[in-house]
């Protein structure tokens, strides 16, 4: 790294964010803020039914309503308007129903769009949408994944099955470990076997900015602004599915108000807005309402997990078998099928399990489609393994941290190839755990817990542990290719050295709250030795950042940031030839330091920004070299990076009311080198609350007709400031070896780790009362019922949570299909 003499290093500095100025003064460019001359507004007519044949659509009354410009149905676009693609078929024979933006014959989930009303104002469009008369013939519908597994009611009758794909990883077959069945059999004979069914309820990403799309078809290129995480992928898929030449499409993600995976999608609404704008030759805008967003933007999670863990009697785990059933909703979304599969490499987590098997069955249902939500596959896996490790500790009467220590990879053992075949580059679980215990006050809280238990305090204290790792930085293109993923995982960057000494950095990542403008400026300021303030980071516009794979999977810094480093190094190398020429020195005698090329052993030197000005004029430059020092770079990592951390949560549970209250939450995350600690803390805080919200509050609930009951913020209960607490967060540092900055991703860490920490804490508070499981979200009602149930049936054992076989029915006591019981 370049040392900077005059200024402190930017990397590691708590720089306040550049982005803030426009955001705190209301000068932000949200898509919905855009108004263009002659612009028309769209309102969607959506199916209220989960599964139905469309028998007729009468648009006449709507067409004649005041200020309506047009009303379209699928029949108006006989050649189609593009498609919502699945980019990751997890098996060659995956069942993948066609996903058309505008449906003409049959709707497969509530919220699907059957007509679009175009009017001079959004209000007029919405008024007229009420006048579109659609006749439906309802079809039998299936909502729950376990029901869908029976193939009695088909989500897509023409497919003949609800089963989309089955995916397996077996350590014996892969040669990365032993045979899990043998391990289980051995432990049944002489050891401990823990069998559990856990439920990952369905969540809704619920970004704060509703999705919005504006399309301007005037001019040579069609311009689409969209509230998306993936402008580059969107542009590609518009071209690939509509036939519009890619060179005629420009996609801009302006300021985007959060995503959390929820805007990692190409949406029906984007294709419809595009089609309407092209048909009318006028700019068109669509902005969803929150209720539309909750039902029609993709959902997350929704898995049934069956875990079987074997161990010796002294707590050494010998095998883990995972069987997942994942609800994809009505369609296989862009990476919907792949999200649960990402768990394949994460259920074994930080542990040295000798044998491992992962099985995942994805199924189609007549519900909103499911795809990435913060963590995407890794929170589900972390929840499963951290829950069952606590259950094993309880079974053995061990401290849960001691059990983990007995099984985790020690810091001397890195790099470590896991039983799932992943090579963890670096880590130090001992250090993070030791620090977290101190921060948390572990021993004192354990003492208090003991005291409350002995005194029979109605408010019991529980301590929850979650020691997690995750794979982040999607990712090595060759690895993705081997998994039949439709794209690569590289990232692109470019650096333009402006003649006035300013620097433009172009990144192919597309931030929506992460602070890339600030962090990338810090990296470049250090590398090129220019002031932080002189660096401008440009992104989210395919005309400016023409190449990129966007932002998701904690990839931006570890892949995109590294691309920026490589581009900067190219600039330094290119400018060196000019500097040598101008200094009349041999390039080999030059040293680049603090933004200047100096002739070693002399006072002679020239700044890199002076070289930029000299190349702008180009009055005097070396023969045989083109006059310019700008550079671009594409970085494709060799491997993922593997952040980890130890999260500890103390929860007070009122056993008389079932109310849980988080008292203390401490976490120590190891994310390698940190570019900006302020931003890292923010990412962790936000991640924690999303994970805690899964544990305590959030769930997408459908009723028996497939209607989303939690269809507004009245019922889908996002946490408020009053529900949450302040956190204790720190870091340990094991630099990643898969990028030169030594960084690991942090965007998803908090969400991945916190959910099991909270649920483990609740169970730890009431386990002595006989409670073995509480289905998420752990509402007071569910906790109270669990306590009552446990005390009523003095013997609560495995029968309380039957494994999911066909006869057992729906093991989830609180979710899909029984909304009336809430």
């Amino acid at each position: 790294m370049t040392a900077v003499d005059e200024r402190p290093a930017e990397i590691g500095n708590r720089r306040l964010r550049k982005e803030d100025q426009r955001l705190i003064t209301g000068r932000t460019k949200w898509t919905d803020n855009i108004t263009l001359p002659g612009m028309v507004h769209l309102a969607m007519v959506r199916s209220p039914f989960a599964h139905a044949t469309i028998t007729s659509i009468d648009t006449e009354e709507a067409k004649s309503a005041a200020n309506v410009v047009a009303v379209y149905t699928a029949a108006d676009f006989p050649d189609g308007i593009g498609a919502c693609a699945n980019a990751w078929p997890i098996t060659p024979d995956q069942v993948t129903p066609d996903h058309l933006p505008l449906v003409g014959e049959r709707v497969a989930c509530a919220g699907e769009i059957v007509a679009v009303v175009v009017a001079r104002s959004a209000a007029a469009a919405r008024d007229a949408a009420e006048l579109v008369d659609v006749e439906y013939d309802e079809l039998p519908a299936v909502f729950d994944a376990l029901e869908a597994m029976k193939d009695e009611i088909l989500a897509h009758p023409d497919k003949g099955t609800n089963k989309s794909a089955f995916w397996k990883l077996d350590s014996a077959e892969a040669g990365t470990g032993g045979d899990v069945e043998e391990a289980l059999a051995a432990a049944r004979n002489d050891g401990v076997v823990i069998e559990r069914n856990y439920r990952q309820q369905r969540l809704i990403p619920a970004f704060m900015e509703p999705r919005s799309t504006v399309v301007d078809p005037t001019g040579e290129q069609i311009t689409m602004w969209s509230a998306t995480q993936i402008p580059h992928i969107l542009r590609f898929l518009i071209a690939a599915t509509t036939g519009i030449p890619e060179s005629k499409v420009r996609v801009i993600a302006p300021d985007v108000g959060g995503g959390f995976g929820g805007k990692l999608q190409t949406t029906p609404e984007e294709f419809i807005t595009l089609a309407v704008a092209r048909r009318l030759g006028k700019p068109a805008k669509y902005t969803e309402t929150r209720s539309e967003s909750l039902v029609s933007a993709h959902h997350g999670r929704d898995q049934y997990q069956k875990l079987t863990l074997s161990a010796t009697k002294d707590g050494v785990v010998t095998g883990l078998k995972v069987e997942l059933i994942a609800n994809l909703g009505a369609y296989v979304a862009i990476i919907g099928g792949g999200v649960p599969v990402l768990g394949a490499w994460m259920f074994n987590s930080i542990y040295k399990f000798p044998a491992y098997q992962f099985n995942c069955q994805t199924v189609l249902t007549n519900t909103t489609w499911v795809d990435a939500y913060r963590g995407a596959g890794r929170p589900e896996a972390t929840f499963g393994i951290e829950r069952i490790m606590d259950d094993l500790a309880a079974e053995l009467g061990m401290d849960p941290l001691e059990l983990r220590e007995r099984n985790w990879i020690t810091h001397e053992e890195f790099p470590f190839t896991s039983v799932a075949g992943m090579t963890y580059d670096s880590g130090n679980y001992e250090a993070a755990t030791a620090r977290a215990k101190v921060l948390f006050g572990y021993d004192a809280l354990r003492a208090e817990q003991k005291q409350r238990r002995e005194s029979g305090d109605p408010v019991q204290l529980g301590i929850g542990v979650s020691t997690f790792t995750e794979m982040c930085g999607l990712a090595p293109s060759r690895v993705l290719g081997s998994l039949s993923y439709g794209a690569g995982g590289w990232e692109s960057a470019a650096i333009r050295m402006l003649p006035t000494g300013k620097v433009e950095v172009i990144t192919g990542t597309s931030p929506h709250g992460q602070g890339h403008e600030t962090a990338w400026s810090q990296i470049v300021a250090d590398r090129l030795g220019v002031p932080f303030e002189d660096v401008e980071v440009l992104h989210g516009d395919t005309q400016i950042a023409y190449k990129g794979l966007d932002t998701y999977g904690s990839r931006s810094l570890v892949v995109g940031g590294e691309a920026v480093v490589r581009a900067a190094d190219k600039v330094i190398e290119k400018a060196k030839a000019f500097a040598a020429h101008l200094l009349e020195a041999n390039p080999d005698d030059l040293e680049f330091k603090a933004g200047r090329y100096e002739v070693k052993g002399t006072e002679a030197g020239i700044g890199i920004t002076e070289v930029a000005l000299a190349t702008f004029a180009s009055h005097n430059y070396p023969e045989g070299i083109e006059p310019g020092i700008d550079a671009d770079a594409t970085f494709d990592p060799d491997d993922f990076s593997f952040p980890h951390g130890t999260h500890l949560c103390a929860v007070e549970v009122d056993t008389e009311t079932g109310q849980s209250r988080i008292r203390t939450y401490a976490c120590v995350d190891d994310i390698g080198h940190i570019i900006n600690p302020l931003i890292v803390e923010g990412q962790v805080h936000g991640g924690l609350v999303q994970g805690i919200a899964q544990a305590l509050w959030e769930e997408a609930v459908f009723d028996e007709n497939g209607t989303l009951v939690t269809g507004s913020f009245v019922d889908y209960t996002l946490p408020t400031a009053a529900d949450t607490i302040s956190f204790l967060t720190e870091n340990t540092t094991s630099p990643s070896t898969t990028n030169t900055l030594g960084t690991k991703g942090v965007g998803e860490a908090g969400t991945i780790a916190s959910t099991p920490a909270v649920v483990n804490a609740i169970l730890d508070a009431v386990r002595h009362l006989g409670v073995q499981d509480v289905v998420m979200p752990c509402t007071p009602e569910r906790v109270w019922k669990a306590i009552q149930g446990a005390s009523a049936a003095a013997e609560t054992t495995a029968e309380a949570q039957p494994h999911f076989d066909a006869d057992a029915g729906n093991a989830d006591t609180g979710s899909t299909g029984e909304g009336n019981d809430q």
Partner: protein
Amino acid sequence: MTRITVTVDGQKNVDDVEPRTLLVHYLRETLGKVGTVVGCDTSNCGACTVHLDGRSVKSCNVLAVQADGHEVTTIEGIAANGELHPMQQAFHECHALQCGYCTPGMIMQAIDLLNDNPNPSEAEIRAGLEGNLCRCTGYHNIVKAVAQVAGQKGGE
């Protein structure tokens, strides 16, 4: 249409509006005050919070005609003479925003909260912000920012 006269961020405006027009839509669509945003349909999220005669209101929950003859202050009107409002400055310093979508409403609510209670406890800050949702920050740094402004005022 109904004629209304509303002073917004110091500017007097006279407009004809449909009686059903919400204040937030009047601000955004008629006046171009797009700093104030819409986040939900149910008055839960608070992203649209502005001040009506100095008190915070959710502008999706007020009709434009109800603002007739009144003064509205939005996020665009609280910085004076190029100086950020102390609450804006504190949000910046404490990293109390990420995507920034909730931020205008959150700042307007936080200002109102301190007008009501200049020296709130953490619990009082949290309760005072309960009507404003943020999905990015986990509220930790928002609470810190509000406490910082309260501390500054207390020291004056």
